[in-house]
């Protein structure tokens, strides 16, 4: 029987204006990060509904990271401030339910921070990998 190497699955929600561009810059500069990271483009980090995050965990994601413009630099002036409050509350709640707090993260990445994007993803993927598979929030039906 073949032992499959454990690879964490990470969903990254990136705002269109800063973080998605930061990810592009990481690409332009050929900065490697694990292929386990899959990016979903949203207009602003404040578009990320907690439902999306839970859904990702439900379907087997091992970590979810939300990236937005730095506070004060939001393309929509205030979107990331709402993100900050919502996610602070949500992550604290997930922790309260016993979900490992290392599986969720918010990081501010500007369009100029390709290196930060890659470093963040490397570090996050490593952290999540060290936790092992997400067992506490997954929907077993969805696991093959």
């Amino acid at each position, binding site marked *: 029987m073949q032992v499959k190497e454990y690879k964490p699955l990470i969903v990254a929600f990136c705002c269109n204006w800063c973080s998605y561009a930061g990810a592009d810059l990481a690409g332009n500069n050929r900065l490697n990060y694990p292929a386990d990271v899959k990016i979903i483009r949203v207009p602003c980090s404040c578009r990320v509904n907690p439902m999306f995050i839970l859904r990702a965990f439900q379907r087997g994601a091992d970590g979810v990271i939300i990236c937005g413009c730095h506070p004060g630099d939001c393309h929509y002036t205030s979107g990331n401030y709402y993100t900050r409050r919502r996610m602070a509350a949500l992550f604290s709640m997930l922790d*309260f339910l016993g979900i490992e*707090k290392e599986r969720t993260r918010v990081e501010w990445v500007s369009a100029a921070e390709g290196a930060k994007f890659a470093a963040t993803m490397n570090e996050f993927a490593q952290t999540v990998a060290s936790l092992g598979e997400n067992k506490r929030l997954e929907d077993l*039906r969805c696991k093959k």
Partner: protein
Amino acid sequence: MQKITRDQLVEKAVALLSDGTVSAVLGWSRGEFDYDITPAVFKSAEEVKENFVWNDFCGANFSKYLVAQTGKVEGKILVFLKPCDTYSFNQLLTEHRFDREKVYAVGIPCEGMADIAKVREIVGDGIVSIEDDGESLKVSTLYADAPVLVGAKDVMAERCVNCKSKKHVAFDELMGEDGEVIESARFDEVARLEAMTPDERFLFWQNELSRCIRCNACRDACPACTCEKCVFDNPDSAVENKAPANSFEEKMFHIIRAFHVAGRCTDCGECSRVCPQNIPLHLLNRKFIKDINEFYGEYQAGAEVGSRAPLVDYTTEDLEPGEVFERGDQDA
């Protein structure tokens, strides 16, 4: 054990109906059992005199019913509000959920309501009748020869033991004396859970939430859950989910439900009161309230009409989501 009597409430309702101030009364009526009190709309003095009930099981928070009833009744509707109900009342006004002009709100004092589960713990099953006997309840069961006397204080609902306020924040008229906001110990249980390891917390919630049968009682009783259509009932929401298929689904339901009411929940405790599985759902709401208080300053939803809920507000100096845990680590 209530200071205000049924007769006083009936007299008030009848008077307001007769002089035309109101054309309907939102009140409690008997359900199948003595402890199974049901909200009802009374349209006449006769109905009130006959069916109006007031006892230690009248916990139902009527604020929510105003959303539907104010649209149905011609003229004003009389609602009796216990102190904790008035917060929900204000919160719904903040959210424009009913027309204040169509309501005549009478604030009534509350000495705390009984929890039938606690009664059962003492007397066992097969409760036939419960009579209020001043400081205690006289409970007759199928299996006991004589009625059992149960101390009203001993069976008081958790939310009343940890009552956060005896003050009415909204009313047109007040019966009895107004009280004060209370420094309660309502967050102690949350703090206890916070002090556990994540594994212990996970086990705790796994045990609690796995009992959920998705009956939606919590949602239906919650005065913050007054959505015209709940996301979980909406096929377009992509999370539509009528019944739990596995352990994750109810977790998602309860997390999202708590998140949707976060900053708006007044901590009235109806969710836990109506839960047939006795899941301490209010702890999820209190966790949000406690966090919000600690992160963004004290906020009591419904204390004032028109206040801005913390999650639709921000300051540029708010703490980062990551710092939430650094704080926790320091405390631990």
